[in-house]
């Protein structure tokens, strides 16, 4: 979180509390895209994400006066968003698309890599691949179950620290790290297979 962003948040909080004109516009300017994006990555459905975003902003407006300020403003909003979305998911039948276990690295009994490794880390540095890669990362992220997806989105997409993500989700830092690690292992494996296929085809 940059110092500038921090200042913007402080000013926004102040004007929301005072009910200053333009406060709501500023709230929307800073958070509309982020909240919609986070809601989309949890709910994976546009109309659900829209309704969730409405609930989130409603809650923020209602509770801004009682917000204690012992955590950062953005982390408070993200937390409201995550909770709102998880509540929405509850009760809905979840159709998990893939089992993450199938995409974990495989080792021999001696703990050595059981399959050959293809080094695509240099290839993906080509800018021409960016759009395609971005699409693939998003697709594979969507396949993750929500437990891993939320952590991966907050940490690796949004760039929050493990501590911040832990606070938002109400989990311990080790729990966050373990989920993030598994999510990355999954994406690594999926990207490897995808890029290898591309080469063969």
């Amino acid at each position, binding site marked *: 979180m940059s110092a500038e962003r921090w200042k913007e948040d402080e000013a926004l909080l102040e004007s929301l509390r005072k009910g200053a004109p333009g406060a709501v516009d500023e*709230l929307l300017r800073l958070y*509309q895209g982020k909240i919609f994006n986070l809601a989309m990555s949890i709910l994976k459905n*546009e109309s659900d994400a829209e309704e969730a975003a409405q609930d989130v902003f409603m809650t923020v407006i209602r509770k801004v006066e009682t917000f204690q300020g012992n955590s950062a403003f953005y982390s408070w909003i993200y937390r409201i968003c995550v909770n709102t979305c998880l509540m929405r998911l509850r009760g809905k039948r979840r159709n998990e698309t893939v089992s993450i276990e199938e995409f974990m690295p495989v080792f021999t009994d001696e*703990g050595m*890599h059981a399959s050959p490794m293809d080094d695509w880390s240099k290839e993906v540095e080509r800018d021409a691949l960016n759009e395609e890669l971005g699409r693939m*990362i998003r697709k594979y992220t969507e396949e993750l179950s929500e437990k891993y997806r939320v952590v991966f989105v907050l940490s690796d*997409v949004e760039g929050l620290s493990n501590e911040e993500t832990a606070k938002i989700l109400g989990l311990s830092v080790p729990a966050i*790290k373990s989920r993030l690690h598994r999510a*990355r292992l999954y994406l*690594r494996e999926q990207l490897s297979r995808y890029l290898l296929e591309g080469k063969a085809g």
Partner: protein
Amino acid sequence: MNCKELAYMLADYFDGSMDPRLREELDAHLAMCEPCMVFTKTYQAVSDKTRLLRRHIEYEIPPEVRKRLEKFVHAAALKYPEKIREYRDQVERDRRGKIADLVSAAAAGRLSSAIALLMESHCAACPECGEYFDSLRKTGTPPSVDPPDGIRAHVITLMQTLPPGEEFFLA
């Protein structure tokens, strides 16, 4: 350290939380193990690329959703302060009523002993309140009195000094 152990320590390796001696061991393994080197590079590429390609990975908010959301939030923000004001006015009215009852009960000697004692010692120390309550007693007490702001502030402080649950009035 074998390859499997190494793979499971990579998150620590990249977030800098790894014990320096373990890190040395891991680096030594990487230097002599080609598959682990490739695994580690590609693992790192996942989070590096994700951060870099954020723009392609994030969901763009559709214009019509943006419009609807803005309309909704503005409407909600307009409605909400009214409700807060109503609630605050109600709380203020309740409090004024309670103070009025308390003041008239004080003048009529109908306070519970705990608050009566507090009131007495306060009036002895505060000429403003002492005079006010004296004059009330002399003129006879109406059932409810709205005191001036200065007095009200002192009465509120007294009310807050009383332990919660303590009765204000004589039974």
